[in-house]
């Protein structure tokens, strides 16, 4: 009955559709949710996954890069310690809520129940035609957490959201609202313990009410054969401040999308990314930011360290709406290319429709400074260790800027650990 032109599906696309057929019987949801799921999966069936002809996916040809889709694998998931001890830990294992901490000023609802009673049907709306992550996540979504932080709550301990898996498929969703004047630190951990490949999608929708102050850290440490599809969507109301910090330190095919809008005057977005790339991995960080109202600010700094045959992408789009005067946005992308075969593509995009704004972007590429390397070696530090120190130095200032000692130390450990495993 459909008049949609048929395309020849890839092995991965066929596997996705087969997985859906297999899982749909026990995916949670009322009739509305089920219809929405079917629509999302039908979109994939008729259009396929995005190729480089889709502008938002130009540097990450998902259709060609995603070769296989693993079957569901409900293996045991090892618990992990929180990055910062004392954190309130919420965890998902293979897409199902496993652990829910109790914290004052924080109320939590399971998304599986919201799907069952239909109140979660809104989670099934993709961002647009090119939202492949939203489609996969919505189509396969089992569970997740809606977290509300009360107005004025000042959380002393971080909230850690652990998205864990044992290989196979894992699809997670978080809907987080931070109340007016509240402050919180949220740490999103993405990792697995499976020896078989994983396909992970994880989507978070974040709203900061007036004057809220949030640090959100994503630590992505998937295995070397895993596919990680992340997306965080946020809205900043009046005077809200969001610091979003992403460390990519794993995965074979990684796409992390960040889509935000400033909807209240005086709001500020601070975005920092550290991409540690090695092997034959491909990692894409794509950001779109709308400065929709006057007097909002943002800074974006992306630091990339690329070893081996790894490739990376940063797309940063900043839109300044016609009446968003006095916007101040500054974006920088700095890359350390450490092998002949490493590559990184960066695409800054400024769409400015207001006339009284300050927007800037810059990009640099460099190798390790030979004089620095020689100096460290002349003090007895072997080449491999000396290189690791210099790579760490390249990303250190971005981490230190967090100005939160336990968090800085925890992230330095993640970075150091990755370099010990990958530095050559």
């Amino acid at each position, binding site marked *: 009955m459909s008049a949609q032109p048929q395309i020849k599906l890839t092995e991965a696309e066929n596997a996705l559709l087969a997985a859906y057929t297999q899982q749909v019987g026990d995916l949670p949801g009322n009739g509305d949710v089920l219809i929405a799921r079917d629509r999302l999966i039908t979109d994939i069936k008729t259009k396929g996954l995005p190729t480089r002809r889709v502008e938002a996916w130009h540097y990450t040809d998902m259709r060609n890069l995603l070769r296989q889709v693993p079957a569901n694998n409900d293996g045991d998931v090892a618990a992990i310690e929180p990055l910062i001890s004392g954190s309130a830990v919420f965890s998902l294992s293979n897409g199902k809520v496993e652990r829910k901490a109790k914290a004052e000023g924080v109320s939590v609802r399971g998304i599986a129940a919201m799907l069952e009673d239909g109140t979660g049907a809104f989670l099934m709306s993709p961002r647009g035609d090119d939202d492949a992550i939203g489609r996969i996540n919505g189509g396969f979504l089992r569970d997740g957490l809606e977290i509300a932080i009360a107005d004025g709550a000042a959380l002393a301990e971080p909230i850690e959201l652990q998205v864990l898996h044992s290989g196979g498929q894992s699809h997670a969703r978080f809907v987080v609202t931070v109340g007016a004047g509240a402050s919180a630190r949220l740490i999103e951990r993405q990792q697995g313990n499976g020896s078989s490949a994983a396909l992970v999608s994880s989507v978070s929708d974040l709203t900061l009410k007036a004057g809220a102050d949030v640090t959100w850290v994503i630590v992505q440490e998937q295995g070397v054969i895993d596919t990680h599809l992340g997306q965080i969507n946020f809205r900043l109301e009046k005077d809200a401040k969001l610091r979003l910090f992403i460390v990519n330190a794993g995965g074979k095919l990684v796409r992390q999308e960040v889509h935000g809008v400033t909807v209240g005057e005086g709001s500020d977005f601070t975005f920092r990314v550290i991409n540690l790339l090695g092997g034959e991995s491909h990692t894409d960080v794509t950001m779109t930011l709308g400065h929709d109202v006057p007097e909002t600010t943002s800074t974006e700094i992306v630091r990339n360290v690329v070893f081996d045959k790894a490739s990376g992408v940063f797309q940063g789009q900043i839109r300044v709406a016609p009446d968003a005067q006095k916007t101040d946005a500054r974006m920088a992308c700095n890359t350390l290319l450490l092998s002949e075969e490493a590559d990184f593509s960066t695409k800054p995009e400024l769409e400015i429709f207001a006339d009284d704004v300050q927007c800037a972007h810059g990009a640099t590429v460099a190798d390790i400074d030979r*004089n*620095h390397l*020689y*100096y*460290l*070696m*002349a*003090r*007895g*530090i*072997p*080449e491999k*260790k*000396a290189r690791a*120190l*210099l790579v*760490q*130095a*390249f*990303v*250190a*200032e971005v981490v230190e800027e967090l100005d939160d000692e336990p968090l800085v130390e925890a992230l330095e450990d993640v970075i150091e650990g990755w370099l010990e495993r990958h530095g050559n």
Partner: protein
Amino acid sequence: MLEIRNLHARIAEDGTEIIRGLNLTVKAGEVAAIMGPNGSGKSTLSYILSGREDYEVTEGDILYNGESILELDPAERAAKGIFLAFQYPVEIPGVATMQFLKVALNEQRKQRGEAELTTPDFMKRVKDAAAHLKIAPEMLRRPLNVGFSGGEKKRAEILQMALLEPKLCVLDETDSGLDIDALKIVSDGVNALRSPDRAVIVITHYQRLLEHIVPDTVHVLYKGQIIKSGDKSLALELEANGYADVIEAAA
């Protein structure tokens, strides 16, 4: 301890020969001064001893405790006890000075098969050595050499030397950029390290430093060769008469 035999070396990039048949022997316990006019190859010699890859040895050998070190990289040479105090220490943003010191000490110890230092032991050593060199703790909290004054950089070099306890110390124009007080502090630091099992090579333009670090031998380097050797009186003679007489006599 150190024996340089008929050494020839050039700049790797363009093949310019800098060291042209240099012979030099320095014994354990000895302080040897190397003097010479600009462009004679003094700094190049220090870089070659440390193993900088910008230079190629084309002939001859460098023996350290009887073994050739030509095949060793800078880190291996350092672990064997060779230390170069740089004329221009490089600034490395993002590497904290304390972290650098700890890594350097422990990496050398590892290469020698020794146990790593505990943090309290390390801290104590740094504190003691820094106090002797009048280095403020704030300086050690900054990134390595970043924002250090010329004098602070030189003191930081001597601090590293004191902590690493090398056997062969090469000081490349350590006196340049130092005022009298700093020169005294740095010289005292070097003198404190003098010992029967340690050799020091002091590369300098001026007699001034040698009043503080009194050498056992003085060698004149010119056009990549040692053209004259003597005791400390040779330095005084050079100070009084310049290099012209010595160069003429050698020609």
